Each structure stands twice: as C-alpha cells, then as structure tokens.
C-alpha cells in the first residue's frame, strides 16, 4: 500500500484501516467532526443541558459527596475537578496509584486537593499483582498494555462509587481532544475476558485484589442501579491550551509535556514501545484531535512529528527504570521490542460483541 497522509489532519496510512475521500480528507477527522457535532456543547441549548446535568447530579446525592472524580494529575482530569467545583458540585477525588506515578503528577494532585479543598481517597493497587499482569501483557505481545491500568481505574471508581453511595463518576473523556483513535491502536478496555485470558496464560500470580468489571456489570450499574460515568467535558467547550492556562493560573498546576506523560509507564509506552514495536505514533491522533479542535495548525503538527518522541538520554534512563520495575533484563526487553505483535483477538475476547453494543450506545447516550 502506498503512503498517504490526510490533507486536513496528520493521520496517515500507518493506520491500515484509514480511508480518504476524493479530496484527500481522511475518515478520522470526519468522525471527529461528527462526534463533536453530536456532543452536548455543540447544541444550541448547551447551557441548559449542562445546568440540567448538574441539577440531576446534585438532586441524586445521598451523602457527603455528589460525584466522584478520578484524579491522575493530568490535564483532563484536573480540569474536570476544577470545573466540578466551579459548578458547585461536591466531588470526592480518587487517585488510582498503580506504582508509576511521576513526582509532577503527585505534586499536581497535591496542588489540586489543597487549592480546591478536595477530599482524597487513593486506591493503591497491590503492586506485585499489578506488575505481574503488566508483565503478562508484555509476554502476550499485545498492543494495549495500558488496558491493565485503564480497566482497573474504571473498576476501582465504580467500586468506590458504590461504597460511598455516589451515583455519578465524572470522567475526563472528551470528544474535543480524544475523538480520533484507530481501532488497531488500542483494545476495548472493558474486555475482561481478554484481560483474564492473557493473565491466565502468562501470569504467575492469581488475580486477587486487582479490581475488575465486566461490561454486563457496567450495563447493570447504569441501567439498574443508576451508577454511571458522565463525560462532563462534552458539556463544555473544551480547549486543551485554555484548560492548561486556567489550571496554571488558578491552581499553580504544572504541565508535564505530552499527553498522558504524567505516568512514567505511559510515557515510555507511548513514546517508545508503541512506535518501536507496533509502528504506532500516538502523537498523530493527539495532534489530529488538536488540529480539529482548532488548537494547532497542521504545519505545526507536522513539525512536531519530525522530532523524535524521546531525547536519547531520557530514553536510556527511563528504559532502565521501566525494566527494573517490571523485572525484565535489558536483553529480555530487546527481544520483546523485536518480537512480532500479536492481536488481542488471538486470545479469548468479547470485544467484538461489546463494541457493537457501544456503537448503539453512542447514538443514544445524550438522549
């Protein structure tokens, strides 16, 4: 297949499923447009929609808090916390500690909880068990190692929501800056069947305390017990640069340079493992989202992509730290980077059925 890059964003044929129209505009930025057009903040009654949501959250509060916010120290979740306070909500902040926190992430969380006067619970995952599952995902050669974290965050938030009788989880997910994602570049995060199958095959420890949630359980939560996750940033006009500026000015917050780089593992995964082993440069989706959100020009994005994702010295020291923490030797890690990728679907999975359901859900979610 010949190489082609979108004329509007910077997505290209490194995603095998990309398609282009006759003028050279790709399927990804079109779907970005469509999803943004559908989001509450794009509607003429955006203000009323947000007010109604806030009123609903407040009205359904049972205890001290009316919502839960997962705080990672990153931009999106920090901005959710900031907005929640502005909107007069009473959030319980939850930080999920998977053993890969950067000092800056922790410092940002500290600034947030102190300045916004948030009550904080930290869900500290058992590192030995978590590490074993992460190791299994390396051994399985599958692309979405971050599924191990992302799945557990959702599961942990729901667990805590139940414990504290809080019905709403405010998530930082947003269509403005997170719409584009080639299917092959990540896996369905709630594919519990896949996760457990990979751990069963490659893991050394039994899954005991690692929090899990199945899609059936999630559906039950939403439709039967009324616990749900709300992407509140979709109710607001959301610009990354503006959010960063606000957080800096109001809370003394600091940026860590790069989407999701607040976690040491995520940084290494996105800036080294993905490009090196899977031929995936995730900066393309982040930059394309920002182009579509009117925050970056295509020219600037292309320039950004010319830079290596890592400086050499940072790569060497991060690599050493990551190997040490995961218990891989440098040789083992090299072998891993050179081994061919294996599809998540080579292991048991219910992602295909689940994704079909999600597609239907997306059409009706704001109704």
């Amino acid at each position, binding site marked *: 297949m010949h190489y082609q890059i979108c004329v509007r964003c910077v997505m290209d044929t490194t995603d095998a499923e990309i398609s282009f129209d006759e003028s050279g505009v790709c399927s990804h930025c079109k779907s970005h447009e469509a999803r943004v057009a559908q989001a509450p903040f794009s509607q003429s009654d955006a203000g009323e929609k947000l007010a109604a949501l806030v009123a609903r959250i407040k009205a359904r509060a049972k205890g001290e808090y009316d919502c839960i916010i997962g705080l990672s120290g990153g931009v999106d979740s920090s901005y959710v916390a900031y907005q929640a306070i502005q909107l007069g909500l009473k959030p319980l902040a939850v930080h999920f500690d998977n*053993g890969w926190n950067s000092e800056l992430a922790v410092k940002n*969380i500290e600034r947030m909880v102190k300045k916004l006067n948030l009550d904080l619970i930290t869900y500290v995952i058992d590192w030995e068990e978590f590490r074993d599952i992460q190791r299994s995902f390396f051994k399985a050669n599958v692309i979405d190692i971050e599924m191990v974290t992302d799945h557990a965050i959702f599961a942990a938030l729901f667990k805590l929501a139940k414990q504290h009788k809080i019905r709403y989880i405010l998530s930082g997910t947003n269509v403005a800056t997170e719409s584009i994602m080639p299917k092959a570049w990540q896996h369905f995060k709630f594919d519990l069947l896949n996760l457990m199958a990979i751990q069963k095959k490659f893991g050394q420890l039994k899954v005991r305390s690692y929090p899990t949630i199945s899609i059936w359980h999630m559906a039950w939560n939403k439709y039967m017990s009324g616990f749900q996750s709300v992407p509140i940033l979709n109710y607001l006009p959301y610009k990354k640069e503006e959010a960063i500026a606000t957080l800096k000015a109001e809370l003394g917050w600091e940026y860590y340079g790069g989407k999701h780089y607040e976690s040491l593992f995520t940084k290494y995964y996105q800036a080294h493992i993905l490009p090196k082993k899977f031929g995936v440069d995730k900066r393309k989706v982040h930059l394309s989202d920002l182009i579509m959100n009117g925050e970056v020009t295509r020219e600037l994005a292309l320039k950004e992509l010319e830079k290596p994702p890592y400086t050499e010295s940072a790569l060497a020291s991060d690599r050493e730290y990551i190997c040490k923490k995961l218990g891989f030797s440098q040789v083992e890690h090299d072998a891993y980077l050179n081994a061919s990728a294996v599809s998540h679907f080579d292991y048991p999975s219910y992602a295909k059925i689940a994704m079909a359901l999600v597609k239907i859900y997306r059409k009706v979610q704001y109704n």
Partner: protein
Amino acid sequence: MLRIRVIPCLLLKGRGLVKTTRFKDPQYIGDPINAIKIFNDKEVDELVLLDVLASVEGKGPNFEVIEEIANECFMPVAYGGGITNLEQIRKILKLGIEKVVLNEAAFQHPELISAAAAEFGSQSIVVSMDVKRKLFGKYEVYRARGTKSTGLDPVAFALTVSKLGAGEIFLTAIDRDGTMEGYDLELIKQIARAVPIPVIASGGAGKIGDFREATHCGGASAVAAGAMFVFHGKHRGVLITYPEADALKQAFL
C-alpha cells in the same frame, strides 16, 4: 550552617510499603521503588527505611530488596530490620546504604553496637528505640514493634547505647506513630538532654511547625515523619509529599 535534617521514615513489609498507626493496622501504601523515585525528585535530606517483619518473623534483612532500593536512592539511606551480625552490616553498607539501624540487636547482642561502631564508625550506626508512655506519665522502652515491654527506662537505655558507640538515636513515641498529633516533646527532651549523640525525633509529626518544636523545644538534632509525608486529608489518601525547601528554611529560623 546546615539546616536540620527532615527525614521521611518508610516502613517495609515484605516487598511493599505500609504505614502504621501506633505501630498497628499497617495500611498498604504502594511500591517502595515508586515512592523513592518521587522522594528523589523532591530532594529529601535523608531516608529511614525500616523492615517491620524482618526481626519479628526472625528473618534476616532481605538483601535483594535492599539492593533495589539502594540503587534507586539519591539521598543517604538508613536501613533497619533483622540485623543481628557484623556480616549483614558489612553487606548492607556495601550495597550503598549509608547507615544501619539496630533495634532488636540492642537487646539481644548489645556488643554488636560497639563492634559495628569500631569497624564502620559510629556515624553509620543508628540505634532505634520505641517508647511507650505508661500510666502516670512514666516512659518505658518496648521491643518487637511495640509488642514486648522491657521494663527499661528510656534515659538509661539511651545512655547505654550511646556509651556502646551508637552514632545516633532514632527515637519513636509509639503512642504518637501515625497520629499526626505532634511529637512527644517531653520524651524528646529527656533523651536529648541525657545523651551526647544526635537524637532523631519520630512519631506524631503532622505539620511543619512540629519539626521546629521537636528541635527548638525538644532538643532533637533531626526530625522524622511518616504519615505526614504519605497521607492527605481525613480519608488518609496516599499522596507522597515533602515540604518545599523555602518552607523548611522558614520553619527552622
């Protein structure tokens, strides 16, 4: 003049970190390597790392874990837990740990203190003592993580270990551990006045002002804190923190 040292004290249980309250109810707070990496970036003065099971379960020091930790630490580290002989101390110091903390050995083999001080120098030998306040305000030294009383008077004990050659005393008020209600100033005063060696105050720190009290009023040479550097707020959410350099400078003025 060097500023008073402010030392995070971390408790190791197996391969994880825990934090206790009055030496009980260990709460898991995560992976030591990640915590140490964060403390590195925060440029802490020094670190005390105590393995709470090593002596109680009769196991020696876990050298593998100690090595991992020593390799990660940029700051000076004192390690304690399960040390019973010179050979172990030699090995620990070789791994890059600066000081060893003796506790159970001070009761079972006090001669180890003098032998170790003679071989490695007093500056690398810390003796820790855990003290409980008894009825009518009398203090008593406890051993085995606060589970066994010894009948020993803390002042007499501190004098003994200092004469044996200990370079520092790590003094913990068991009743204050993890409470963040402030140090036991009376206890610190009694010990700091009695011995010629530095006393590190531990147990109860909850705010920067407590450090000043321990040193200025209590006479401690350095201060340690656990809960204050790992917990935040009423739910005790785990959040690693350390005061900014300016704030510390102000506190000790």
